[in-house]
């Protein structure tokens, strides 16, 4: 009982931290709103209605409300299917290479942590950072950059 309560507390703290950092992201990215990509042009689907990727603001690794929604759907899809995934973290071309490697690893882990809180075993999730090395859109435009700042969930088996 006591142990369960502890976990619940932890969860509350974790979720409120995520919510808080999401707020600060929105603030930092300026009055025009966040520069997180919200379209579906580059998105693929793991199953019907289950998007394979989430997007991030410049220099940030916090999950947005939409990202959390996508990851909850991925978690319930993973609960129903016996499979493992790799989370591939990415950055855009507007940052130094080494920092992008670290940041993309942080982004993929933000997605991993969220899947863990929804009961997916860590054994089923691995993480790899590609930094800015594998853009999905190679144009030098704010739209392309927002599509490249992503964590993609890829089925491994």
């Amino acid at each position, binding site marked *: 009982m006591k142990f369960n309560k502890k976990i619940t507390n932890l969860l509350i703290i974790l979720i409120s931290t995520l919510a808080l950092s999401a707020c600060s992201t929105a603030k930092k990215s300026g009055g025009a709103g966040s520069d997180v990509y919200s379209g579906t042009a580059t998105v693929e689907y793991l199953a019907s209605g289950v998007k394979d990727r989430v997007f991030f603001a410049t220099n940030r690794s916090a999950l947005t409300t939409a990202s959390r929604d996508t990851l909850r759907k991925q978690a319930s899809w993973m609960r129903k299917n016996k499979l493992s995934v790799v989370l591939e973290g990415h950055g855009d071309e507007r940052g130094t290479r080494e920092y992008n490697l670290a940041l993309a690893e*942080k982004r993929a882990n933000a997605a991993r942590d969220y899947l863990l809180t929804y009961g997916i075993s860590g054994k089923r999730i691995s993480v790899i950072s590609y930094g800015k090395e594998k853009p999905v859109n190679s144009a030098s*435009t704010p739209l*392309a950059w927002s599509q490249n700042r992503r964590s993609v969930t890829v089925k491994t088996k």
Partner: protein
Amino acid sequence: MKKILYILVIFLFKINTVYSLIEVDITRGNLDPLPIAVSPLHVDPQSDNYQDAKIKELGDLISLVVEKNFKSTGLFNPLNKDAFVQKPDIAHLKPRFEDWSLITAQALVTGKILIKDEKLKIEFRLWDVAANKEMIALAFTTTPSNWRRVAHIISDKIYERLTGETGYFDTRIIYVSETGPRTQRVKKLAIMDQDGKNTKYLTLGNELVLTPRFNPTNQLVTYLSYFRNLPRVYLLDIETGIQEVVGNFPGMTFAPRFSPDGKKIIMSFAKNGNSDIYTMNLESRLVEKLTEDSSIDTSPSYSPDGKYICFNSDRSGLQQIYTMKSDGTGVKRISFGDGLYGTPVWSPRGDLIAFTKVRNGKFYIGVMRTDGSGERLLTENFYQEAPSWSPNGRLLVFYRETKSGKDGKGFTAKLWSIDITGYNERELKTETDASDPSWSSLLSK
């Protein structure tokens, strides 16, 4: 002799006094480079196979390599050989200084080569035209195929005599060669002489490779490879081609560099969304963790005495530059300007830290003192990063990317170098697109 020195001293003094005061210096001007005449080296007719055109032109080729090196510094103005009156062999014995001073030469390089029994003997002299004096005379013996290296060594000796600074011509640059579209870029490790010649590819392009860096004391290189899709720091011996993974880390290791004594590798290790800085001793294999912070700590670089480390961290919110003692204590933020700062690299002289700065969507390469004061931005562009120091601490080599269009086309990645005064910005021509350059130490110390 005195006159030349005098001119150079004034010249260097001028650069220092005028430009160290300017905080943001991205303008370029033309100073008066020293006029120097590099006479073709005389080929001794007693050489084996003297009638062979390849032997006959070797004297010209060597002088052209020397000339190109001088030209690239921006400090010298090699004079047109058409105006030379004296024949190479006579000039080498005793120049008629009036002739050389007539074409405004202030320094003169002469030389002679002899090829006998598969050995190349090169002799050269540097003359002070105004003072009518010999400044250096040196001779080397080597194998004929080594003539380019000798040309670089001669260039270094002359540069050192005229500027009072260590040369950097007998060096190599390792970099990442890039081909193919950006969404499927093929990257290979490549190495070339400092002047862009003798390019060799060290990996086949089967796996992604990034950020190669030279060991300052030998021919080892450390870099990041995605071999078997596991991003890890590797060691490569460029003479034997033997590669090995560095340490046994349960996750991504990246951003490697050697310690100044070449015995340790310092790098980042990322785990569960947190990157910290570690060192590994290459002999004892002992691993030490230097930073303990929940934010990103990466791009570490040692001071030349090995006592300090500069690195990149976002612990204050966004990317900034920090320094600490080599045991991880005494962490201090040193960058406070407007914008983000990344890729700090400690100068081999110890006095400056070079960095990449991002401000208002532009990328700058700059230098600051090791306490963060005296920041100077040397060059502004759409995208450029990852400066690496020439071994004498006078130049930086870095890579620059151009904007791609909406269709993703028009993208290029090239190597550039710039003098720390902000002058003499120029492209280093490479066979393919290129990034992540690292400059070697002098090969002949």
